[in-house]
């Protein structure tokens, strides 16, 4: 379907975008052909999102030209781009949380007389055709991150866009859902829809792309046919060096040195919370990384949020959470923080940081939360030292700790969330999807940091739906299915097939 003889659907010539002097992309020449899947790869901050937001009308070029079907355009807003058949599925989704799934899908496309029942039926049929299992009558605010992503994708497809830009569409999807998603991509490609696909999962890009373009520091460093690329070429282009021992390196179970168990710090007994968590029991040990794997909706996050005091277990016969031989039942998360439990959220934008505050302020807030004094204050010098310490320790790439979090790339935002959590001096850290939407370079740094925490004796729980990540750094793996821990694996015994089998069957 990809035809080099055709005029490109989208073309950028000499595209440059700067934000108040800070160059995001520079002198970019980019073409998107009809019916092509074009993957954009690069580390966080490489300029992928900026490039695609320019195409989608969210940003405008500072220099250079944008052509659609050979005609120069300059979209003032995403609405104009949508009128030209260009839709974008954002990484941080843009749904209306107070509306239902059906209402969100048909938003902007409502008829004069909207029957709610008809709307729901139409949405149900449409979602089923995409193989997305989401209840159209639910409020979007009640959905998990993965289901929101599905609704986003469904909405873009529903608008009959000619060009759809996916920014990390599969980050929140389970392997089964990813399979459906790639089927959908193939169907769209067959219908001559052009797709731009931003991802950090290199295997996915290699599998699905007709063309791959790699960006680094705002410039295109490599581009070519997908079939001509391999993992090594992509990684070299992305970061300018080989990357061994990363989440993407081959994992050799025989060579894994598992950290021995030390003290049992968390013991969960017969934990129940409605239908999400059903009578489950497990333990967590200090000095180890306990990986928790399961499909989206299996109840992993809910279990962890109960431990962290975010959710409350059932009032009657809800089970026990025993923290260092003390039975705990938190009313608010702050009580958990006081006990040394921190939860690093999977949804950093909503729950992880204050986006309009600076990096330093976010880190300082983390510290203040853990202060048990009634009048907890922090001196200016202490605050500066604290933020400087974590800024450097986490290798956050920004001009200074006084940069606003909203201006950072996904990976650096995640580092801020982690720094904010660790400033609370925890003894138990729960990472929920710690590398979602994070580039390979930052993934390695975050993994090394998590491993260091375990070596320091901290009990680490890492929830992830990315199997290589779970297999790569966990000392023991708990598999969750339908609200229960159904199987436990030692790192040395685990294989991707066995873990996945336990999660699915």
């Amino acid at each position, binding site marked *: 379907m990809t035809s080099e003889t055709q005029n490109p659907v989208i073309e950028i010539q000499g595209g440059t975008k700067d934000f108040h002097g800070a160059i995001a992309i520079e002198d970019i020449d980019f073409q998107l052909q009809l019916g092509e899947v074009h993957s954009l790869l690069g580390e966080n901050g490489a300029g992928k999102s900026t490039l695609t937001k320019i195409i989608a009308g969210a940003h405008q070029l500072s220099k250079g030209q944008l052509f659609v079907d050979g005609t120069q355009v300059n979209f003032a807003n995403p609405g104009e781009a949508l009128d030209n058949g260009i839709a974008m599925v954002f990484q941080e989704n843009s749904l209306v949380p107070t509306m239902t799934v059906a209402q969100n899908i048909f938003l902007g496309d409502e008829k004069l007389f909207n029957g709610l029942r008809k709307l729901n039926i139409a949405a149900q049929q449409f979602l089923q055709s995409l193989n997305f299992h989401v209840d159209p009558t639910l409020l979007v605010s009640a959905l998990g991150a993965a289901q929101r992503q599905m609704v986003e994708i469904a909405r873009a497809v529903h608008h009959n866009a000619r060009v759809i830009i996916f920014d990390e569409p599969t980050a929140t999807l389970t392997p089964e859902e990813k399979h459906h998603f790639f089927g959908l991509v193939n169907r769209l490609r067959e219908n001559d829809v052009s797709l731009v696909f931003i991802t950090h999962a290199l295997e996915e890009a290699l599998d699905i792309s007709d063309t791959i373009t790699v960006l680094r520091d705002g410039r295109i460093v490599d581009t070519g046919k997908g079939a001509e690329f391999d993992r090594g070429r992509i990684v070299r282009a992305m970061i300018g060096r080989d990357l061994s021992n990363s989440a993407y390196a081959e994992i050799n179970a025989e060579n894994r040195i598992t950290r*021995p*168990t030390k*003290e049992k710090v968390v*013991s969960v007994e*017969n934990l129940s919370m409605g239908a999400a968590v059903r009578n489950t*029991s497990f*333990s967590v040990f200090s000095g180890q990384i306990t990986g928790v794997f399961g499909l989206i909706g299996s109840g992993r996050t809910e279990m962890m949020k109960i431990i962290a005091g975010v959710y409350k277990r059932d009032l009657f*016969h*809800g089970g026990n959470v025993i923290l260092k031989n003390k039975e705990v039942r938190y009313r608010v998360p702050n009580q958990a923080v006081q006990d040394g439990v921190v939860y690093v959220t999977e949804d950093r934008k909503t729950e992880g940081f204050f986006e309009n505050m600076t990096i330093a302020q976010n880190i300082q807030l983390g510290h203040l939360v853990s202060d048990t004094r009634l009048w907890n204050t922090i001196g200016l010098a202490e605050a500066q030292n604290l933020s400087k310490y974590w800024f450097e320790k986490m290798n956050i790439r920004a001009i200074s700790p006084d940069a606003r979090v909203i201006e950072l790339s996904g990976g650096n935002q995640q580092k801020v969330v982690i720094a904010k959590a660790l400033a609370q001096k925890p003894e138990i850290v729960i990472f929920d999807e710690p590398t979602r939407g994070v580039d390979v370079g930052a993934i390695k740094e975050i993994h090394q940091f998590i491993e260091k925490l375990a070596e320091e004796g901290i009990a680490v729980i890492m929830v992830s739906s990315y199997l290589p990540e779970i297999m790569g750094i966990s000392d023991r793996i708990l598999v969750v299915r339908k609200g229960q821990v159904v199987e436990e694996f030692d790192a040395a015994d685990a294989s991707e097939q066995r873990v996945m089998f336990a999660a699915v069957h």
Partner: protein
Amino acid sequence: MKSMYYRILGRGDAAMHVPVMDGPLKPNNRLDVAERVTEVPELDNLVSCEGKLWATSETQLGVLSNDRLETVHTFSSTITCLAVSETSRLAIGLDEGRVVIFDPSSKEVLDEQVVASPTALLFWDEDDLFIASGSKEHSPSEWQADLMSEGRSGSLTRWSLKDGSAHTLLSGLAYPTGLVRDKTDRLVFSEAWKHRLCVFADPTLDGIGRPGIEPVLTRLPGYPGALSLNPDGSIWMAVFAPRNQLVEFVLTEREYCTKMMRQVDRSLWIAPTLRGGRNYHEPMQWGAVKQLGVLKPWAPVLSYGLAVRLNAEFQPIESLHSRADGSVHGVTSLLETRENDRATTYAAAKGDGVLVRMDAGSQL
């Protein structure tokens, strides 16, 4: 008031939760695949004395030779516990309520002391013997009755062999069943009905003042029994029966429990046992998870085979299991020896009457 609150909400003591076996306690079949050395009814109490492996079977004290138990002496009552001193004297607890000092070379009883229910013995030195008594009301063979009647009458006694005096150091214990002197010279004992290990927090070990106990390992998924120290400072702990939610529930229903103990044959009680599943009259638990006549290994059972190795900080580091469908249930004694510079562990399963041997234990 608090108890009623707990009963309504299903919390605290009324929660009836059994800790999960995971991490180092993750189920395996290491006991079942281990080499079966010999089969002797009610094999128990492994000790090493003069380079030989000693064990007991009911009333007989014997030496394991050529993978057989050769009887050295027969006592008048079932042997419940055994300890050996540095000069190779044996202390032997008898079900009839006595502890005797036995000389294996002359085969003579040198001394004896009346103890209600001897469950564990430990020579601190040549002159001092620590004796754990499980209960005032029940003999060791009636341990199920003590559990189901919520026995809290166990005690720890120091018997001076020099002057014959006996001094009770602790009382009101919930069935102490194991004694060991750890690498740092602390006296550690298991308290079965409270599912925990404790350190006797009295450095002088004379019980003067108000000696306390410090729990060092709690919330065990079974009833801990005999303890034995390994060369590297780790400790083997025999867990002679598993905890079970049904049993925990029955224990809270006092009227039912009392009636059951009065009216039902002991072998059919809803209570942990060293070996269950042999009698089809047994309560429903075993049949409930049979599929096509096959008992599933994860079935909720009344007997189980479990041995746990603890590090010097009393944290579990490895475990040996015989699951519901296994045949090494009711492990009551463990002993680690060095053979060809390799750690070899013997486990005596009193429930199934079998001695198994495997490469496991200290890493020196």
